[in-house]
């Protein structure tokens, strides 16, 4: 096991003349629940997509469990579980079949797979719906199944890109509990979110990014204390100059 779960060094990503991330450096430790916050277009998803090997950086480097995202993408994919911002799933499969398919991609042993789906579905409140076709799911159910698809391989590092968007409060609470349990199991979780109360509630540390630049990093309580405000949302407002609603 490498020293840090994730090491990002001077990472830059440009799309033609647009700089999505500039000179970003982060060190995320094992077992840490780390939030990446920022307005739309700040570079959160770009960072996650470099870490999950979908994008290649223009400059700098990133390693996940010691595997370089450019030179050893296969090694990275072995240790991560990715919950994308837009939940991608096969509509003609049941929730269970979608999750099992992802498990098969990670070569999770067949005898473990079904049992694990059952246990995880119970934990996230999907046990009554898991055998239904995905096309009949509500938005909240789709997001929960998407989360299980990401975590069925029991990854060391989970990359969750806005996993609770458009969820009702009950579903969101169920997902929060699930994320807390991941942390309790010692997993490293990278969480991007627009919900400041979610970050404050869950994250050990957060990084606030704006216009591709890292503008603040620390634990929610440290940041609140440092900026002498009431909560993380006010820290965000103070640093980015944008209200959360504008940011979203």
């Amino acid at each position: 096991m490498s020293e840090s779960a994730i090491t990002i060094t001077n990472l830059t990503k440009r799309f033609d003349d647009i700089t999505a991330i500039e000179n970003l450096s982060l060190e995320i430790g094992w077992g840490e629940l780390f939030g990446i916050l920022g307005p739309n277009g700040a570079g959160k998803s770009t960072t996650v997509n470099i870490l999950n090997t979908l994008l290649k950086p223009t400059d700098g480097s990133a390693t996940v469990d010691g595997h370089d995202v450019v030179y050893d993408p296969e090694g990275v994919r072995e240790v991560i579980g990715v919950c994308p911002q837009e939940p991608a799933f096969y509509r003609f499969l049941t929730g269970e079949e979608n999750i099992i398919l992802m498990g098969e991609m990670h070569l999770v042993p067949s005898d473990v797979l079904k049992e694990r789906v059952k246990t995880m579905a119970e934990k996230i409140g999907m046990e009554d719906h898991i055998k239904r076709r995905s096309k009949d799911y509500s938005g909240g159910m789709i997001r929960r199944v998407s989360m299980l698809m990401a975590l069925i391989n029991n990854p060391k590092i989970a990359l969750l890109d806005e996993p609770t968007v458009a969820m009702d409060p009950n579903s969101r609470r169920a997902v929060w509990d699930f994320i807390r349990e991941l942390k309790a199991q010692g997993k490293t979780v990278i969480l991007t979110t627009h919900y400041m109360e979610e970050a404050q509630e869950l994250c050990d540390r957060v990084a606030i990014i704006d216009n591709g630049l890292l503008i603040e990093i620390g634990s929610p309580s440290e940041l609140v204390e440092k900026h002498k405000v009431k909560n993380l949302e006010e820290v965000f407002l103070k640093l980015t100059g944008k209200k959360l609603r504008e940011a979203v």
Partner: protein
Amino acid sequence: MNLRRILALTKKELKKTTREPAVLFLLIIFPIMITFVFGLAFGGIGGGTATSFDVGVLNLDATSPQADWSLAFVDNLTASEVFVTHAYSDNDSGHSALIQGDLDAFIIIPEGFGDSVASYYGSPLDPSAWTNSTIELYVDSGSQMAVSAIPPLVKEVLMRTLFGNDAMTIILPVEIGNLGLVESSALTQWDFMAPGIFAFAAIFMTMIVAQTMTVERDEGLLKRLRTTPASSADYMISQTVSYMIIALVQVALVLTSSFVIGYRPATGIAGVAFAFVITFAFSLVAVGFGLISATVSKSAESATGVSFVFIMPQMFLGTFMPLGGATEMISKFIPSKYVTEAITTLFLRGAPMTTPVIWIDLAIVSVIGFLLLAIGVILFERYGSR
């Protein structure tokens, strides 16, 4: 590359075929439907039944003293079993029925028909003593079969009327030997079309592949798979294997449906197995064209349209449509043509398995299939998958 991943992705693709109504229709129900529809329309039922023609008859000599001859001619037309005769009382209604497609032919027996026959029998060796008359025969020009088959058959019935069965046994110094096309009269149009149905059914896989790839790309499924240890090779192989399996199912369905409506290919088990093999190889062509269509398409809807660029020429120049001249030349560049040619050689002509042309056809389809698949995979990976 990992076998378990390939199997899981293949299983996923096959589940789609049975669960998505549009895919199920196009890949499974459509081949059965088209076999039944074309089989029924083109004489497949009870394959081997002789074709019959609806013929209108206006007998203008029915009331003359020599009417027996014209009546005997009409009786013989009916007795031939090739013609179903319908009596008409005037010229206009007969022509109208022919124009509207109710008849394949319209025959007008002239006044004086009986007198002509009688004058012949009065002086069989003196043509100058005969009273000549002409039977008018109108044939539906829209039916190639009617144009070529009806005139000689009517002439044969006329000869039988004038000379009786002896007409067939008149000894001549020159005679035609036995025809080589044994039982050719028992073939229906369906027998000529059936071999083309195998390629026809498989051609539409191109559209499904194109739609699948664009949907999986647009909905982020390809990206999601890319974040797992599954490789592009796992995915592409699973896609190809899925459609190869579907091609085999299609051949089985077309064969079974054809059998149900009476089609009996003039080949044995080996010939039938060959049909499976060449269609299996042809599925590579369909997947290749599907990938190329997906590469240049921005959405599933446009992929459907683009795929028809590849589907249409194959449908019209490589299956059961009659070709000639320039189209015959163009068809040499159409992969489905070789599938149809090989299956026709076996199923219609009853050629043995040692016939070189079927193996050449298989080699051509396989080489084109692998080439198109390679081109499709490279193009899609490079330009179409993101």
